[in-house]
């Protein structure tokens, strides 16, 4: 019922329906999960697929991601792209509540007829977020958005999670990371297709230094994409400096993605990986439930030193 209604709304480009559908997909209730699954199913069967670009944007809090997205997103929206931003805000750990201030930073994009900005509180870190975000992306694509940004704070595992659901990954850096240049996680540099050293309006020299450093790192490390060398750029989300260059870079990257159906391959692999990952979680849950008794028995025998670890494992696999 609900799924049907929301699907209809989304396909007729009703923003309210999209907003409610995102809520549904993000909900933690089992009955909502069911409806969400159905919604995705309907959309999958009815939406006509079109070329979209999924763009991950990462960087430490305060680096200027939201401001960057306002500038870049608006430029795209003005060029008749349909742009949506899914921003994940960190929930306050103690209270479970959150303050979602991103709308204030992306006001123009939020209000643009071609734009849509949806801040979401990041719930209990990452369990399930990946799946949900992937589904939210599919809702936005069904609605007709062709530029989907996923903004994430660069903490913990979140950037690998986001990397695994986007076509292109963009990392924002601050110029004055100062003495702890080494503090930039190598891991994140390996993932980046673009590095944008932000806030050049404040200190262009520091920006250039930082960019040089990044380039020197790329001389040394191996990056995962055959045929695409990460681009390092400097600029300012506030003054728009460097933004045109970045947009051109993205266009080149899109070309690159189209060669040899690279994008399809990546997306297919991502889907499979996601499936396996989710399967692990679900299967593990299932396993725990059905084998609860045997596991308990085996583990007490183990503690009492009656059997070996190998035997305990065997008992669980064999037992009922």
């Amino acid at each position, binding site marked *: 019922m609900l799924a049907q209604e929301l699907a209809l709304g989304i396909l007729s480009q009703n*923003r*309210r329906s*999209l*907003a*409610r559908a*995102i*809520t549904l997909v*993000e*909900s*933690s*209730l089992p009955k*909502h999960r069911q409806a969400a699954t159905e919604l995705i199913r309907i959309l999958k069967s009815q939406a006509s697929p079109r070329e979209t670009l999924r763009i991950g944007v990462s960087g430490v809090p305060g680096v200027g991601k939201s*401001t960057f997205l306002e500038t870049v997103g608006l430029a795209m929206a003005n060029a008749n792209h349909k742009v949506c931003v899914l921003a994940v805000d960190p*929930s*306050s750990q*103690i*209270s*479970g*509540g*959150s*303050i*979602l*201030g991103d*709308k*204030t*930073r992306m*006001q123009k994009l*939020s*209000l643009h007829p071609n734009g*849509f*900005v*949806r*801040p979401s*509180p990041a719930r209990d870190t990452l369990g399930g977020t990946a799946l949900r975000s992937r589904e939210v992306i599919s809702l936005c694509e069904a609605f007709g958005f062709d530029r989907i940004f996923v903004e994430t704070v660069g903490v913990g595992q979140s950037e690998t999670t986001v990397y695994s659901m986007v076509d292109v990954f963009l990392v924002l850096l601050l110029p004055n990371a100062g003495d702890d240049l080494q503090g930039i996680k190598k891991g994140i540099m390996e993932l980046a297709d673009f590095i944008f050293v932000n806030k050049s309006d404040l200190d262009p020299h520091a920006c250039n230094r930082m960019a040089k450093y990044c380039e020197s790192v790329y001389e040394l490390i191996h990056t995962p994409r055959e045929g695409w060398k990460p681009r390092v750029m400097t600029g300012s989300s506030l003054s728009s400096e460097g933004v045109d260059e970045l947009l051109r870079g993205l266009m080149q990257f899109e070309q690159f993605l189209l060669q040899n159906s690279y994008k399809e391959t990546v997306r297919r692999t991502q889907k499979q990986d996601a499936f396996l990952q989710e399967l692990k979680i679900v299967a593990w849950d299932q396993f725990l439930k059905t084998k609860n008794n045997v596991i308990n028995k085996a583990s007490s025998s183990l503690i009492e030193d009656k059997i070996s670890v190998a035997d305990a494992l065997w008992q669980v696999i064999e037992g009922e």
Partner: protein
Amino acid sequence: MDNSYQEWKKLAKKEIRQEELDSLFWDTPEGIRIKPLYTAQDLSELTYTDTMPGLFPYIRGPRATMYVNKPWTIRQYAGFSTAEESNVFYKKNLEMGQKGLSVAFDLATHRGYDSDHERVMGDVGKAGVAIDSVEDMKILFSGIPLDKMSVSMTMNGAVLPVLAAFIVAAEEQGVAVEQLSGTIQNDVLKEFMVRNTYIYPPQTSMRIVGDIIAYTAKNMPRFNSISISGYHMYEAGADSVHELAFTIADGLEYVKEALSRGLAVDDFAPRLSFFFAIGMNFYMEIAKLRAARLLWAEMMAQFEPKNPQSSMLRTHCQTSGWSLTEQDPYNNLIRTTVEAMAAVLGGTQSLHTNAMDEAIALPSENSSRWARNTQIILQEEAQICRVVDPFGGSYFMESLTHSLAHEARKVILEMQNLGGMAKAIELGIPKMCIEKCAAERQARIDSGKDTIVGVNRYQVDKEDEIETLEVDNSRVREQQIQRLQAIRKSRSEADVKEALNAITQAVKDNQGNLLDLAVKAMRLRATVGEVSEAIALVCGRYEAKNNLISGVYAKGFLGDQEFMDIKQSVCDFNQIHGRNPRIYIAKMGQDGHDRGAKIVATGFSDLGFDVDIGPLFQTPEEVAQMALEADVHAIGVSSLAAGHKTLVPRLIECLNALGASEILVFVGGVIPRSDYEFLRQKGVASIFGPGTPVIQCAKEVLKLIEAKGKD
């Protein structure tokens, strides 16, 4: 001495029946420890404890004779509706003993919009007087001789066209610009921090301040080019140390700006004036004014002024509006009297005393009279003026003065280490500091640690109704629009266009004096909105970014059962609905009061809500769309500048039109009781007036969201 002190201690312990005197000490919110008794010992290590008024470092006052020769100026801040109505009001007040004028402009004017602009539907004439052009300004001062009357104008954002209109209005009265006396607020740094009527980005804004200082230094010898204001910081929540420190630090920033234009310090520094708030912490506020003079004299020394007036801090003061309550409002007369006493014992040069209906609406005729009379009674009945600096030499007051100065110096140094106040403000640091103070204060009140009579203690069962002033903004707006149309018909469009282009060009080239150019444009009957736009064409309108604090409100409730209960209900809600209750906090129209909105936002999130905080200055249409896309359960409108009767019904219409009528609408802020029924009929779910504890608000909002979810 030492002996007798020991004896006193013994006696004191006996009186309080305790082994130690600890319970008699008080740590103020500023972090200053107040002892129960001060003695000559406390002065022994301090400098400047025996100085003279009128002499460096001016702790005891900027003038040798202070009020004994001439009492402080009674300067009531007022303005509402049209220029005609405000003019009548001013003239009446002057007849009744007021000495100087102080103009309050409406928010459309503050933000550089003409009254016919679509973004100011709810603001015209509401919280001040609407001024669109020289014609309005002439009406505002008709029959008031501008060569004799000192006029203070609270104008910052649209300072160029408004000051220009004032200059031209005087000119057309036959008064030359050199003869004008008074003050223009022109303090944009605190706008970015707390007052929120900025228009342009910081750089352009600072240039405008500099141009005005330069213009007045040259042409207006009797006019204060700036009023460096701590008042608004205090009212936004800053404690006295932060108010003091940030204000002095702002002052230094302006001095540097003026020096950078090649002015000599003595050319302009004597015309810098200050503005402080006076709250309920009686001794602290007296000490604050004394410390401010000390600090300014001390800091100005680095610029090596020759003229003593350059390092002499002169100030206006206003009693704290924040300290006044909607509940049992006659108490406010008493609060204001206490604060006024502190202001004059601290040695202010002029004073505004607030009206008892402060937390309800703009002052009525009666409440304005009582507010003014508070000062007249102090001057003429209580014999307060008979002696200079009566607190001078008090062990306690001298010591407190120095403690405050000491704490403030630390903060000023911190700001300097960040690269100066302008830089610090760009980083958002002072603003966060102030918001933290505000959240702490709110938690202390809501949890009953601080007493507010009539609000959290000694409440009355039934509130008396009191008469309030209401402005019919659609009538004012129509009248303004008519006048605008008439002006646009009668002026030379080509000339106006040329004058406006000259402004735009001067901004682009960073050349010329913008006030000079604005005077030319206004003389040709350009409007406030047009001049403002001519500048915005180059640099755009500034949009502030919100950085919210969290956890501070909750900290004030450690171990509080009620707080935990509400948090638990929020968790329960999540279990049932699969997500937290989500609310969009909205500020609509040009109302820049954001203390309440921020406190509610941070408090609600501390209680477990997901809170979307919207930007300032939205239209109802924009709020409706953003709230809908975030799929919130409720919108919480915070309205303090009287736009609620226009903007809230419009918001509800928009929601209905978008098919989102299930989103609940709450309203908080300064809403007269007599408007509650109107708002409810328009579909508002609940209304929270001043003084409502944030936890009560949260409880009620949650309850109504839950109820909505059921049907």
